[in-house]
């Protein structure tokens, strides 16, 4: 069909069929959205009716009332006389405490096991494979209950195990020595953080210079001075004290030191071991995804092994590793809500208690959703940013 011989009838039909398609699309959208709105409206009217029958007022006013629920494992100051809002915040802190520490430990353990699976030592790689297979094929909740039962089966505080001096393991949980923090200690920590940032900036400078003139430069003497020497100087100048508070057995319990409750410890162990099995597989497949030729090329250029691993293999492996790693971090955070099964009071557990006490089911569930959607979004944003940073730069 060319422009010089137009066929009006055919063209017209084409136009009609196009608009028909658009019309059909519009029609279906209206139908589907209409059904969705109708269902939601129907559910909502039922809920409104049921709530009015049960004399439950909707809204978040209940957050200001006295909670009356004890929280055993509160990091913030809390008593049952505090409000529901305070209880929710304590629960949120508990969720973050398990999620953040769990993510860090699971990453370290999972990376180690993933590398062990690739070891040329047959025994090591077999053991790592068995670890991964067993932990992945058992439900997390079963593992959690198992660890919790083992914790409860530990000896009482009087007969606590002491694997290292000052570290006690008993049915009261894990008790570690702690360092009392005062103002001087905080300044020293601030100095160490500043040193860390300074050495990061210096590292970028040195790499830029290296790229410019091809002369490698050493970072570690400066980094050592900035991260260790400078805080040590500050500590000496301020006269900060670094006494270690050893836990002591008095009566039936420990005094001093830093206590991880059995609930928290069981949950942490279960989450870390379970997630590390998945992370190990991700790390293994990430490293294997880097083509062997990359390694050979680096050797042919005469680069040192550690240098090649750090600057050639890992950056490419990380590109494969990061996206599935993000979803593992999200899984760990969501799985931390299994806390309710062993009685560690995270946000879901607190919301559940609130719901049973006040009947504010919709609000409690909405708060859970809000918290988890925010955390998920936060982790996704951070990992996407990191992913974009390490992504392949096409030239």
């Amino acid at each position, binding site marked *: 069909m060319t422009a010089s011989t137009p066929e009006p009838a055919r063209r017209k039909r084409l136009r009609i069929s196009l608009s028909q398609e658009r019309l059909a699309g519009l029609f279906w959208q209206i139908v589907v959205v209409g059904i969705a709105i109708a269902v939601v409206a129907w559910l909502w009217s*039922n*809920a409104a009716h049921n709530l009015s029958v049960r004399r439950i007022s909707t809204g978040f006013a209940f957050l200001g009332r006295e909670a009356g629920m004890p929280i055993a494992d509160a990091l913030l100051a809390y008593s049952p006389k505090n409000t529901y809002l305070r209880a929710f915040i304590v629960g949120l802190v508990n969720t973050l405490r398990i999620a953040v520490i769990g993510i860090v430990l699971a990453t370290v353990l999972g990376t180690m096991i993933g*590398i062990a699976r*690739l070891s040329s030592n047959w025994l090591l790689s077999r053991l790592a494979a068995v670890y991964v297979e067993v932990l992945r094929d058992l439900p997390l909740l079963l593992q959690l209950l198992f660890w919790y039962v083992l914790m409860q089966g530990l000896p009482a505080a009087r007969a606590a195990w002491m694997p290292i001096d000052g570290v006690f393991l008993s049915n009261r949980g894990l008790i570690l020595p702690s360092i009392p923090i005062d103002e001087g200690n905080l300044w020293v920590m601030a100095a160490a953080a500043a040193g860390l940032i300074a050495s990061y900036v210096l590292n970028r400078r040195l790499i830029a210079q290296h790229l410019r003139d091809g002369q490698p430069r050493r970072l570690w003497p400066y980094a050592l001075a900035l991260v260790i020497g400078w805080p040590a100087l500050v500590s000496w100048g301020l006269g900060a004290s670094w006494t270690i508070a050893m836990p002591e057995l008095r009566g039936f319990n420990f005094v001093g030191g830093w206590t991880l409750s059995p609930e928290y410890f069981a949950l942490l162990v279960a989450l870390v071991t379970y997630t590390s099995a998945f992370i190990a597989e991700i790390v293994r497949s990430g490293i294997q995804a880097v083509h062997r030729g990359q390694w050979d090329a680096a050797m042919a250029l005469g680069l040192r092994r550690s240098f090649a691993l750090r600057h050639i293999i890992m950056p490419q492996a990380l590109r494969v590793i990061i996206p599935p790693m993000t979803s593992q971090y999200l899984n760990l955070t969501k799985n931390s809500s299994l806390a309710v099964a062993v009685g560690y009071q995270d946000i879901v557990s607190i919301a559940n208690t609130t719901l049973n006490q006040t009947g504010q089911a919709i609000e409690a569930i909405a708060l859970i959703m809000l918290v988890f*959607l925010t955390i998920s979004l936060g982790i996704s944003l951070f990992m996407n940013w990191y992913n974009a940073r390490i992504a392949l730069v096409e030239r």
Partner: protein
Amino acid sequence: MTSIADAPENPLPVGRSRSRRGRGGAIGWLRANLFSSIPSTVISLLLIFLLAKACVSLLQWGFWNAIWSVPDNQTGACRAIRGLGACWAVIPEKFRFILFGTYPFDQQWRPAVATLTFIALFFVSSRRNWWRKELVLVWGAALVAIGLLMWGGVFGLPYVSQDRWGGLPVTLILATFGLAFGFPLGIVVALGRRSKLPAIRSLCVLYVELIRGVPLISLLFMASVMFPLFMPDGVNIDKLLRAQIAFVLYAGAYLAEVIRGGLQAVPRGQHEAADALGLSYWKKNGLIILPQAIRHVIPPLVNTFIAFFKDTSLVLIIGIFDLLTTAKTAIIDPAWQSFSVEVYLFVGLIYFAFCFAMSRYSRRLEAQAGST
């Protein structure tokens, strides 16, 4: 990630260990795979030492010091060796309750047959040469048969209401029905998410992200606490069915994401060719796009099935009697209270058998896909 720096001396050992295998003999193999260098030798010796120690104490606990049976509920002997030896006597005592819950004792052959039907169904569905349309009919027939067996009330079987169901059949029912209904839902949502119509697309995105964004427990709480609020007066849906609905919605969202990945892998040309043949939207997707898309994602689908199977254990928290809940309940009995480890190991073995079979299967499929 600095621990990567002290990685094994060869991060890609596959090629090298194969080339080393040539020397032959057991000693050659040992030298190549366990004692190839000084660090490797140190690691091997350390691991052999730790492994031997762990094996000895496990064997001592599990076999040599274990008690296999006790006269009726006299667990004193078991308690005397607690921590030193296992009390396996708890398993023969409780296994009927763990497997079938409070189902009437003399009728427990029915859940047993239902469980075997489920296993046969999984086996039949796993065979590639039986992937035909008739399989849908087989599934329909099997699920109806299982329903008849469990409920009864016909063919002279006494009726058993579902709050007496428990144990392994409940786990299998939650998982299987969740997947059987979640899968079509997932397909529709995945198609909806790739639709050109903005309203439908955003509804699907909203559904998937909301479900995936929150923990499964909160969905189960919703099903057990909030669901009755949203129903009109007089409508009372059973707890098991409510949990089942939550599982269908949950499975639908996760499966939709996997299937969407498969849809993205189908080349554009397939769409264009189908359009050129004048096929309708449903015919195009049903006959051309989806078969290819699903074939692409079978291994991740099986992995999702495994995760889903494990996740059914979460109903423990809302008090539905699945396999894990019956295990936990079995040891409430004061005589057997302190032998939870044994019971959890037993239940763990059952879960492991199912998940391990599935993961082996997924790996075989992956290998097949890789070789063709």
